[in-house]
């Protein structure tokens, strides 16, 4: 019998005692590197590809005519070039918002039913999450290049920037409270400063991501929703213009950095 090595996708409890921030970060990086070799996100990638290509919905259509910004059906490299302006809807959309738009227009789903339970749980992964994982994987190894050519793209950046710095809520919080200055941390988790290009990449790198806590696949829509929750803000609309603007701000800040594909999170 051949030697069998059985690995679960282990949730390793990191008993990292931070002495200086750097060795801790290095350990986290090493950990991530190991986990990325067999990332369950790939399962959702396969699932998403199937969903992309299968005729579904009331109109029984596939998403292969969906224009993600590079032409109908072009998936390769499209994710790294979102959020971007789409003339047919006259607004800036991020990748998941665009996929939702295509599911509505091409397949006949409704915004209400897609927004009803848009986030993954132990028992269910919403279809847009798997699809965006597939689409994102087709930009693996490419540089982020969210365009700033159209006037609405520049407006979305400014709106996103304003939202990012907007202080409100029970805690008088803004995104910038945690992510607007260098060297902040929550417990052992260092917080990147998204106003700086070299750190802004960490807002979008590794998303969509498989979270080992609970073993579920999550997209950036979920991540931003959770930021709102942590700030005790009212819940933002799923696939809304607000979140597209916020994503425009952080992605444009991260432009030029290489996207490594769907990631794995602790």
């Amino acid at each position: 019998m051949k030697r069998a090595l059985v690995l679960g996708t282990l949730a390793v409890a990191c008993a990292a005692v931070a002495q200086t921030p750097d060795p801790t970060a290095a350990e986290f990086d090493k950990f991530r590197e190991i986990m990325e070799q067999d990332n369950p996100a790939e399962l959702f990638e396969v699932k998403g590809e199937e969903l992309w290509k299968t005729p579904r919905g009331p109109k029984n259509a596939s998403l292969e005519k969906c224009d993600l910004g590079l032409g109908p059906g072009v998936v390769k490299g499209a994710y790294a070039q979102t959020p971007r302006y789409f003339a047919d809807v006259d607004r800036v959309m991020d990748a998941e918002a665009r996929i939702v738009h295509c599911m509505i227009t091409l397949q006949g789903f409704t915004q209400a039913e897609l927004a009803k339970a848009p986030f993954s749980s132990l028992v269910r992964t919403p279809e847009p999450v798997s699809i965006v994982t597939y689409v994102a994987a087709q930009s693996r190894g490419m540089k982020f290049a969210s365009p700033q050519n159209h006037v609405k793209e520049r407006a979305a950046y400014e709106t996103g920037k304003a939202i990012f710095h907007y202080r409100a809520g029970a805690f008088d919080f803004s995104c910038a409270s945690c992510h607007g200055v260098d060297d902040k941390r929550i417990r052992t988790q260092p917080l990147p400063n998204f106003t700086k290009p070299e750190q802004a990449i960490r807002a979008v790198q590794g998303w969509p991501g498989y979270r080992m806590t609970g073993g579920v696949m999550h997209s950036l829509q979920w991540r931003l929703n959770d930021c709102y929750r942590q700030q005790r803000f009212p819940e933002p609309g799923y696939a809304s213009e607000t979140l597209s603007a916020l994503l425009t701000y952080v992605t444009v800040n991260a432009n030029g950095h290489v996207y490594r594909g769907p990631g794995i999170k602790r």
Partner: protein
Amino acid sequence: MADPMKIRATLQGDVADVRVLMAHPMETGQRKDAAGKLVPLHFIQTITAQLNGKTVFTADVSQAVSRNPVFAFKVKGAKVGDKLSITWQDNTGDKRTDELVIRAGS
């Protein structure tokens, strides 16, 4: 129906390093749902790998293995063009088989 697996095989000499990702909830039978009811036991029980139809690896798996698990094993005597097929069966009788043709440097 069960979701597809993701199989990778890297050939080094005549040894194939196989890594398989399986999509499965792997319920332990201990977890409770939102309504407080026990979620029934649901886990992969057996795994079989066949190289060109000949069984080269079997495993009995318990519910102690994580969700969406990864399994890695080595198969000796593999060569380019060989068909590797992997099957899992869970305690509810659900099963899934996926295949991979071993390629050079894949």
